[in-house]
C-alpha cells in the first residue's frame, strides 16, 4: 500500500492527523484519540484493504461531526494513493456491530461520496463449520473509476448473498 500524505489530509480534515509508521491518528476536541489503519486483505481476486478504525478507550462522543469529516478525509487520501477496494468489518464488541455499521454508512451516505464511490454494506450471518454463530456487518467501498467495478460489485453481492439467510 502506498503511504498516505498527511499534509494532504490536513488540508481539509477538521482534526489534525498525524502518522506513526502505517498508523494514522487524530485527537478530538474532547481529548479522545482515534487510530486508523489499512490492512491488506488476502482475497485471491482483487487488491483490497481492510479499514480499521478504533477509539481504544471506547469513549463516546455523540454529535461530533468532525470525527466523520476527518475519517472521510483519510479515506479520500487513501483512494488518491491506492485506487483499490476498501473493506470494513464492524467490530462486534458489545454486540453493537449493527449500530457501528449504520454510523459508518451515515458518514458516507451523508457526503458527496456517493458520486465517487459505490458503497455496499450488508449483514452476513450463519454458522461456521464448528457450529459457531457469526453475525458481521461488512461494507465495501469501490471508486466508481475502478476498471473492474461491475465485476467486483457482482462478485461481492454473490458471495455475501450466501450469508443473508441462516443456512446450515
Amino acid at each position, binding site marked *: 500500500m502506498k503511504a498516505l500524505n498527511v499534509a494532504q489530509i490536513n488540508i481539509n480534515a477538521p482534526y489534525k492527523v498525524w502518522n506513526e509508521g502505517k498508523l494514522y491518528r487524530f485527537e478530538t476536541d474532547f481529548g479522545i484519540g482515534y487510530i486508523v489503519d489499512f490492512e491488506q486483505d488476502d482475497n485471491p481476486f482483487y487488491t483490497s484493504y481492510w479499514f480499521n478504525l478504533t477509539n481504544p478507550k471506547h469513549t463516546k462522543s455523540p454529535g461530533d461531526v468532525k470525527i466523520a469529516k476527518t475519517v472521510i478525509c483519510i479515506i479520500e487520501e487513501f483512494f488518491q494513493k491506492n485506487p483499490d477496494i476498501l473493506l470494513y468489518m464492524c467490530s462486534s464488541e458489545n454486540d453493537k456491530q449493527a449500530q457501528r455499521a449504520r454510523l459508518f454508512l451515515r458518514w458516507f451516505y451523508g457526503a458527496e461520496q456517493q458520486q465517487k464511490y459505490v458503497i455496499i454494506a450488508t449483514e452476513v450471518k450463519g454458522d461456521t463449520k464448528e457450529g459457531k454463530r457469526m453475525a458481521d456487518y461488512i461494507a465495501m467501498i469501490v471508486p466508481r473509476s475502478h476498471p473492474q467495478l461491475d465485476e467486483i460489485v457482482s462478485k461481492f453481492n454473490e*458471495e455475501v448473498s450466501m450469508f443473508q439467510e441462516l443456512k446450515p
Partner: protein
Amino acid sequence: MKDMEALGATQKKRTREEIIAWFDRARQRKMAWEKRMQKKLEEEALLRKQAEESHYYDIAL
C-alpha cells in the same frame, strides 16, 4: 498469459467454506489489531504519567 491467469483467478468462485474462513480471518485480525491499539494507548498513558511524576519533567517545565 498473465492477463489470462488473472482473468481465470477472478472468475473462480469461492466456496461458502472459503468465504466463512475469510470472514473469520478478517474478524480475528481486527480483534487482534484493536487489542494491540488498546495496549499501545495504555503504554503511552503510563509513559506520560511517569514523565509527569519525574524530576526531569519539572526541569523541562
